[in-house]
C-alpha cells in the first residue's frame, strides 16, 4: 500500500484502533503538531458536458492537520467534521514516511481497505439486482 492510499483507508477503521496505533507511534518517536486539525472547505469543480467547461457544484467540509514525526512531515485531510481523526491520520502519515511502525500502519490501513471493500460489495450486490432490460411491446 502506498502513502497516498493511507488517508482514505485509515478513515474507514475504528477510532479506538487508530488512537492505539497513534499512541504506539508517540511512544517511540517525537511527534510535533505543526497545524492543529482545522476545519476547511474544498471547492468542487464539475465537468459541464454541454460545453466541456467547468462550474462549481458546491463545497465539501474537510478537516486537515499537519504534523512532524521525527524529521518528516505528515498530513491528512478527512471528509466532514472529524478533527481528532484528521490529526491521528496525519500522525500515521508522517510515521509511515518516517518509517516508524510502518508495518502496523499498513496493516491497519489494510483492515480499512477490507472493510470498505466489503461494504462496497454489499452495495454492488443490491445495485446489480436492480439491473433491468426493457422489451418494446
Amino acid at each position: 500500500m502506498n502513502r497516498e492510499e493511507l488517508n482514505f483507508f485509515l478513515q474507514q477503521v475504528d477510532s479506538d484502533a487508530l488512537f492505539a496505533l497513534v499512541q504506539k507511534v508517540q511512544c517511540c518517536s517525537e511527534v510535533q503538531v505543526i497545524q492543529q486539525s482545522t476545519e476547511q472547505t474544498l471547492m468542487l469543480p464539475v465537468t459541464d458536458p454541454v460545453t466541456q467547461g467547468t462550474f462549481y457544484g458546491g463545497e465539501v467540509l474537510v478537516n486537515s492537520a499537519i504534523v512532524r514525526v521525527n524529521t518528516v512531515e505528515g498530513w491528512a485531510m478527512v471528509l466532514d467534521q472529524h478533527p481528532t481523526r484528521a490529526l491521528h491520520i496525519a500522525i500515521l502519515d508522517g510515521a509511515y514516511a518516517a518509517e516508524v511502525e510502518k508495518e502496523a500502519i499498513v496493516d491497519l490501513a489494510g483492515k480499512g481497505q477490507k472493510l470498505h471493500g466489503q461494504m462496497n460489495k454489499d452495495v454492488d450486490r443490491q445495485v446489480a439486482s436492480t439491473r433491468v432490460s426493457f422489451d418494446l411491446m
Partner: protein
Amino acid sequence: MSYVAIKGGSDAIQSSIRFFQNSLRQGQVIGDEELQKGLIFSCDRIMGEGALYSETLAAEALRRTGGDLLEAAFYLRAHRSTCKRIGEATQLSGSSMRILRRISSAFKDIEGGQILGPSCDYVIRLFRGLVEEDEGTSLSSGDPVGAGVPSAVDSLRQRDQIVLLENKEEQPFDVSRSFPLPPYPRSALMQVMSRGETGAMLAFAYTSMRGYGDVHPTIGDLRIGYMSVEFIHPFTGNKVKVGDIRVTTCEAIGSFNRDPRDGKLRLATGFGFCLGFNETKAISMSILDMAMHHSGYSVGGMDIAANPEIIIHHVDGIESMGFTNHFKLPHYVTFQADLQVLLKAKEQSDE
C-alpha cells in the same frame, strides 16, 4: 428605504428562543446516524441547498430546526462562510461516478445497463401497514456496475448529433465570492442552480413545460451515486482520496436546434448536477439549462425559465427566504409613513 432601530424586548426574545428550543427537545435525542441514514433525502437537500457537503452538520441542522429544511440549509450556508477555503478538489465528472442508479428514457439499451437502484419511483403511494423488515430475500446476482460508465448521451456526441456550446471561460465563476453582472457567465448560472432551492427550481422548470415554454425533454442519462473527492498531498504532490460524496447528475435532451458553430441541425442538451440524491432538482436544472441556453424554447414572449435574469435571482432558497421573512421584522415607522400618505391622499381625493 430607511430603517429605524427599535429597542426593548430582550427578555421576551430570550424566552422565545428557549420556548422554541424546548418545543424541539424531543428531537434532540435522535442520533446523527439515524438522521443521516434514515432521513437521507432531507440531509441531502440541506447539503445541496446549503452548498456544503457535511453529513454531520446536516444532521445537526435538522435537529436544531425541527426538520425545517430551508432553515437547516441556512445553517450550512452560514457555517460555510466561517470556514477557510483551502483550495479545489480535483475535477468531478459524471462518468467517474460509482453508480447506484442510472436510467435513460432515451435509449433502451445502454452501455452499463439500466439500473433502477434505490428509488421511490416504483413504490405505490398508499399507506398499507408499516415498512416491512428486510428478511434477507435473496438478490439476483449480476455484474457489478461500479464506476467509469459513460453517459448514455455520449454515443450521440460521438456521432456529432449534439450541440456543443462554446466554452467562453478560462476559469469558472464563483458566485460565493462575488455576484456576476449580465450577461451572466454560464458557470455562474450553473453554480447558482446547483445550490438552488428544489421547489423553486421545480416551479421554474415546470413553467417551461406548461404555459410559458416549450421544453419537453427526454432524460438522456440520470444517475445517482458516489463521486470521489481528491486533493493533492502537500508533501508528495500526488493525488489523495479524501472521501466519497453522494451526488445526482442529469443530462436532458431537447429538440433539435441550429448549432451556433456551423449552423447544422443538432440536438440540444441541458445538464443538472447537485450534491446529494435529489433527482427532481437535477432534472429541473437540466431543463432550465436547456431553456436558458437554447433559443426556441420560449413561447409567447413570456420566457420565464429561459430568462437568466429571472433564474439567477430567484432560485436561491436562502436569499429568497431571508428577503421574504424580513417582512416579519418591525416596520413601524415605514408603515406609519404609508398611513400618513394614505390619509393625505384621501384628503386630496375627498376635496
